[in-house]
C-alpha cells in the first residue's frame, strides 16, 4: 500500500506545530520507503502531485476546538468538497478534490487533529499536546510497520 502522511502547521506557534512534530518524529522511526512523509507550513496545490498515486493519505493538524490533548481521527469524504479551493488556505478535502480533478483519482484519506492549548509564540509543545503527539507517533509507527490501512483501527476511534 502506498501511504503518505502530511503534517502541517506553524512551527513558531507552539501547539500549532503538532502535525509537524509527528512527521519529524516518524522520520527517525520508520523505514524510508515504507511511507511518504511531508512536513509543511500549509497545504498547497502542488501537493496534489504527491497525493496522486497514493492509496491512503493521513493529514495531521492541530485544532483549538475540543478537549485539550484529545486526538480525533476523521475520514475525509472527497465528494463533500466540490467547492473551489481558496488557494490561500486549502483544506485537506479541497486538496483531495483538486487531486481528483487533476489526476482522475484521490486516495482514501483521514484527518487527525490534536486539540491544542497554546497557539501563542514559541517553539515547544504544551505537555498535554506533547503527550498526545508521542502516543500518535507510536500508533502511526505500528500502522506503517504492519502496512495496515487506517480503517482497520477500532471503529469507535474513527469519527464519521
Amino acid at each position, binding site marked *: 500500500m502506498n501511504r503518505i502522511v502530511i503534517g502541517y502547521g506553524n512551527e513558531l506557534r507552539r501547539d500549532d506545530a503538532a502535525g509537524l512534530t509527528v512527521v519529524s518524529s516518524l522520520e527517525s522511526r520508520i523505514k524510508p520507503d515504507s511511507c511518504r512523509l511531508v512536513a509543511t507550513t*500549509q497545504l*498547497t496545490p*502542488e501537493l*496534489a502531485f504527491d497525493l496522486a498515486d497514493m492509496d491512503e493519505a493521513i493529514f495531521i493538524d492541530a485544532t483549538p476546538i475540543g478537549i485539550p490533548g484529545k486526538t480525533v481521527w476523521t475520514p475525509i469524504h472527497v465528494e463533500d468538497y466540490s467547492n473551489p479551493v481558496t488557494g*490561500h488556505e486549502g483544506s485537506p478535502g479541497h486538496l483531495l478534490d483538486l487531486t481528483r*480533478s487533476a489526476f482522475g483519482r484521490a486516495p482514501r484519506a483521514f484527518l487527525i487533529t490534536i486539540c491544542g492549548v497554546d497557539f501563542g509564540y514559541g517553539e515547544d509543545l504544551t505537555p498535554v499536546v506533547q503527550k498526545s503527539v508521542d502516543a500518535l507517533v507510536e500508533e502511526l509507527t505500528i500502522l506503517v510497520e504492519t502496512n495496515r490501512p487506517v480503517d482497520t483501527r477500532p471503529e469507535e476511534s474513527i469519527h464519521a
Partner: protein
Amino acid sequence: MSRTLTIDPVTRIEGHAKITLTLGDDGQLEAAHFHVTQLRGFEKFCEGRPFTEMPSLMARICGICPVSHLVASSKACDRILAVTIPEPAGNLRRIMNLAQIIQSHALSFFHLSSPDLLLGLDSDPKKRNVFGVYEAAPELALDGIRLRKIGQTIIELLGGKRIHPAWIVPGGVSKPLSEEERDQILAFIPDAYAIASRTLDWFKSRLSTFQEEIRTFANFPSLFMGLISKEGGMEFYDGKLRIVNETGKLVEEGIESERFEEIVGEVAEPWTYLKFAYYKPLGYPQGNYRVGPLARLNVVDHCGTPKADEEWAEFRDLERGAILSSFHYHYARLVEILCCIEKMERILNRPEITSTHVRAFAEPNNRIGVGVSEAPRGTLMHHYEIDDNGLITKANLIIATGQNNGAMNRGVFQVAKHYIKKDRIQEGMLNRVEAVIRAYDPCLSCSTHAMGKMPFHIELMDQGGNLLDTVRRAAL
C-alpha cells in the same frame, strides 16, 4: 453633488484593504484610493535585534516570497560584515532566487490569473477559479501546479524546506550543493522549459481577446525601475539600478545598491498603511514609478539568455517605447519564467557550483548595510543600521508592492472611470478592479480569495447618506 463609493473589504493582506471612489458634483470620478488598512510593523519590531537574526526574521514577512527577503536581507548583512562572499555561494543564492521567481510567477499566472484569462472576466464567478480551469483546459491547470512544484522542490532541495528556508545566511549559504542534488535540479529543467514555452504560446494566442483590458488596465505613462547586469541584461540577484521613462529613454542608471536612497524616496499618506515610493528628482507624486516583471522587461537591453531574448524581442514589439499597459505584467511574467529557467541551467552547469567553500565569516565591520535584489514583484531593498553591539537601530524596507502602490491606485482610478457611469456601477466593474490589482501580483493577492472571488461590497451613497446603488459579492 459629490458622492463617495466604498469597496470594503477588498482583500486581507496578511491584513485588509479597501477602495474608495469619489465622484464630483458633475458625477465624474474625481479620485480613487486603494487603502491598505493593516500595519505590519517589521521595521519597528526588529530594532534591538542582533543583525544576524534579520534574514530569518525578514523571511517571515511573506509566505510566498520568503526567499526574496532572505536574499536582500543577507546581502545587507554581508555589507555589515564587509565580506565578499565566495562565488559558489553567490551562485547558489541565485539559484534559489530564480526558483523562487519561477514558483511565485507560476502561482500568480496559473492559480490567480488564469481563470480570468482563460474563462474571461465576465464569466460566471462560480466557475472562474482553478476548477473551472481544470474543466476547460486541464493541461494548463496541471502545467501550473507542476511548474510551481518544480520551483518549490528546488527551494526545498537547497534549503531543507519549501517555506522560510534558513539556508541563505550572512556571508553565504549554510551548506554546499552536492552533485546528486545538482543533478536532481537539472532533471527538472526540460519539463520546466516545455511548460514555459507551451504557456507562452497559449497566452500569445489569446492576446487579441483582451484588447479592452490592455487599453484600460493601468495603461498610462510612468517611469520603470529595475536592476540590470553589467551588460545591460536581466539581473535578479545583483547589478545596478536603472530607470527609464515611458518612451524607453534612459533617466537614471549605474546606481549601486547602497546609493538607492539618492533616487528613491518614500511618503506615507494618512489614508493607507502602504507607503508610496517615488523617484526623488521628480518629487511626489510625479516621480511614481513601476517595478516588477513589466518594468524589468522595459529597462533591460536584453534578457541575456537565448530563448528569453527571442520572447523579449517579440514582447517589446507590442508598442513603441516602453510597454505601458499593466495587463502585460502577465505576459512579462511568462518571459521571466523562461529567463529564470535558462539562467538556472547555465549556473548549475558550472563546475564550481558543488564547491564546499560557500561561506565567508567576519565580525561586523560596517554600521550600515544595504541589500537590493529583484523579487518576483519587483525591486526589493533592505537597509539596516547597527550599534556597537551589532544590534539593529534602524531597519528600512522598501517592498516592491509599495513601489507599485502609486500605479495600483492609478490603475483602480482608470478602471473605475471606465465603468462608473453617473450614479450606477456598471456590470463587470468588480471583476476589473480586482483584476487590475492582481496584474501587479501584489502580496495582497495571497490574502484575496485567490480564485477571483474577493469579498466585494460596493455602495454608492449621496451626500445625505442615501443609498443610490449597491453591488455585493460574497466571499468564499
